[in-house]
């Protein structure tokens, strides 16, 4: 029952969030530029452009346009992209697998590196390797992601010629219409540089976070007690102490999903990765307002879903935590 109440509450929140996002998105669209300029050539007359604007309903008052949008949106129609000439929602969903796999690749890299590195640095505080990792992570935090990306392209794509520098390579379509790059060698090799780039924002942060939390846990009473009880060092470190460092890591991780999505925009653009982030930046350049609004609504939805999942994971790691909104 608790979980059901929690989900209903979350669903209501999601609807409100979506509504606010659409309202904000809609009210800023006039400042994004004139979509007509992108639809017609340079020598088309002002009059012809006005006709087209009228046909698209862009001359209607804000309230009329917004009500029309909302009515359609409730039926799952977020409007047609000006550029792709297809429903904005389906354009975005077509690009979702690419972004999802990129994020998954990045998460895989930073999780599998930051946990061992963070624990190592917490336990062997003064070893030379820890020093290198810690100072390296400061550099990592400071370098902007587009610079990392271009550096990667030049080093591995051009100078060494080891890895492809753009695009997604060969993809394989799974039966439910999901284009995956995970199943071909070509697809995987295209994934390497962008996912390293994307993970480079998270990696230093997580190493430092895990190290700090681990060090704190190692100094707590229950760890000292476990030691005194005669448990093996291994069990004390990796079961008792590490489990408690995970809690803040999951919190921060959940919050950072947003950052990760924001950085997919930059990463995808540099690597010509055909995902949602690249699509979004292009849509902004082309003043493809229906696509822009659909993107921010979808991203809003992703946020809500991810936060809900994070709250769930919380209860699994630490049974003392109750789901917010559910009565204990």
């Amino acid at each position, binding site marked *: 029952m608790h979980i059901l109440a929690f989900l209903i509450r979350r669903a209501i929140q999601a609807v409100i969030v979506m509504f606010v996002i659409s309202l904000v998105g809609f009210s800023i669209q006039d400042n994004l530029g004139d979509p007509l300029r992108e*639809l017609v050539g340079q020598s088309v007359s002002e009059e012809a452009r006005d006709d087209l604007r009228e046909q698209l309903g862009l001359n209607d008052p804000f309230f009329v346009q917004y009500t029309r949008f909302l009515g359609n949106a409730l039926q799952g129609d977020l409007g*047609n992209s000006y550029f792709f000439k297809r429903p904005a929602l389906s354009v975005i969903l077509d690009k979702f697998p690419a972004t999802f796999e990129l994020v998954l690749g990045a998460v895989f890299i930073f999780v599998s590196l930051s946990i061992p590195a963070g624990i190592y640095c917490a336990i062997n505080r003064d070893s030379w390797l820890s020093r290198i990792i810690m100072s390296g992570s400061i550099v990592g935090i400071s370098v902007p992601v587009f610079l990392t990306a271009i550096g990667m392209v030049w080093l591995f*794509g051009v100078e060494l010629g080891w890895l492809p520098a753009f695009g997604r390579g060969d993809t394989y379509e799974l039966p439910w219409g999901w284009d995956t790059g995970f199943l071909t060698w070509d697809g995987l090799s295209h994934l390497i540089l962008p996912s390293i780039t994307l993970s480079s924002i998270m990696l230093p942060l997580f190493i430092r976070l895990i190290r700090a939390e681990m060090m704190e846990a190692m100094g707590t009473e229950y760890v000292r007690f476990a030691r005194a009880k005669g448990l093996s060092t291994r069990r004390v470190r990796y079961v008792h102490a590490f489990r408690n460092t995970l809690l803040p890591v999951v919190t921060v991780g959940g919050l950072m999903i947003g950052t990760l999505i924001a950085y997919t925009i930059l990463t995808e653009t540099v690597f010509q990765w055909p995902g949602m982030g690249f699509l979004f930046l292009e849509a902004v350049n082309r003043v493809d307002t229906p696509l822009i609004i659909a993107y921010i609504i979808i991203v809003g939805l992703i946020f809500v879903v991810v936060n809900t999942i994070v709250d769930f994971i919380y209860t699994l790691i630490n049974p003392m935590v109750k789901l917010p909104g559910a009565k204990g």
Partner: protein
Amino acid sequence: MKPLRHFATAAALVLGMVGTAPAQTLSFAYDADPVSLDPHEQLSGGTLQLSHMVFDPLLRWNSDLGFDPRLAESWERVDDTTMRFKLREGVTFHTGNDMTAEDVVWTIERLKSSPDFKGIFAGWVSVTAIDDYTVEVKTDGPSPLVLHTATYVFPMDKDFYEDGGAEIAKHGDSFASQNLSGTGPFTVASREQGVKTVFERNPDYWDTASPGNVQTAVLTPIKEAPTRVAALLSGDVDFIAPVPPTDLERIKNDPDTKLVTMTGTRIITLQMNQNRNEALADPKVRQAIAYAINNEGIVQKIMKGFGTVAAQQSPEGYVGHNPDLKPRFDVAKAQSLMEEAGYADGFSATMMCPNNRYVNDFKICEAAAAMLAKINVKIDLTTMPKAQYWPKYDERAADIMMIGWHSDTEDSANFNEFLTMTPDPDTGRGQYNSGNYSNAEVDELTIASLTETDPGKRAEQLQRVEEILYNEAAFIPFHWQDLAWGARKGVMIEDVVNVMNFPYLGDLVIEE
């Protein structure tokens, strides 16, 4: 060593005699891919690049800015207002249908209904099929630009489009934006918009004399310039355009790649609004601005030589190009002109420029603003992305605004029609004259040039216009943006590129 060399020579001879090079795959990257497969949907460089791959024009520009016959074998002027095109026989569309005069007439009617193209075809009052292979075009008056206009006629397969749907959709989907049947050297094998378009050679292509040996061409749009350059240098693609000025040297110096550059025809200018700012209405002040701006320095320092310094709108090779007009830069002269005009203490003006429309656009404006400070013109500069810039431009929102222009007809009169004639909402003339510059003689000469069929007289009229504009400093010319293509060595791109920037990829040869 000697026998070996002989052997090599002999082998080369034998191979040369065999003739046709083996079929090749071309992988190329532009900064964007065509918005639609419908050649009449949007008048843009991307559309024309596509059209030259999958369609053929009646005639096309050659490298000397002359005309080469394509689907029109020959043409003759019957009288001042009538031109007859004799079509090539035995040409088939991708569907197998024969290309006849009916298709050409149908295509031109469709062009006249396209919002983007109808302006160009406005003067063509009637188009009739005299017989299966003769088309007659009548214009509303004597017209010197019939052939220029005919380069925009890419005959479409009438039956194919009438069956599927011939509607031109500026928004929403249409049959023609997803399907095509032309006569061109390539067909579209697959297309994922924004990701990849695959072209296959048309096995029944009529032009058997074409040396082209590209069997499959794969277009990948790569938006980011550094990534595009990296793709070429790493060998992932064979050919890229455009090349950013910062990477010209690198591509030129790399042992595996080559750079092909050409003087372009897009003029970059500043327009000075005489209605908004009193000072700019004074020709002396405008001349002072022209003298104060070192456009040669801008080309060298900011454009890294990737531009041709301009003193007028018409580039060399255009009928209106006036060879007597030279770039002017003389700060002392500028200062004395300011004094003469009564602005010794200078004045303030606002300036707006796009920051992602032309090559280095905002840097050019920053440099210009700094140069104007030297003659006490205080510039308040705002730069913005083109999406926001164009609505501002339409509002005439600043005293000085930047505009670049490429003549759709490759003719000088087009510059005047849009940029320097007196703005008139009824005729659409001066639509991009944000400075409100107005000179009756410029208007008259331009109008006269549109119906003047004597090339000598036309040149005189249009060169006179350039001279007037220069003397009155109607606008500030910077440069014509150069064009650049990067290619892998062996991809003979230099033989098929042109100043209009639609490479004739059907004729491209890739050497082993």
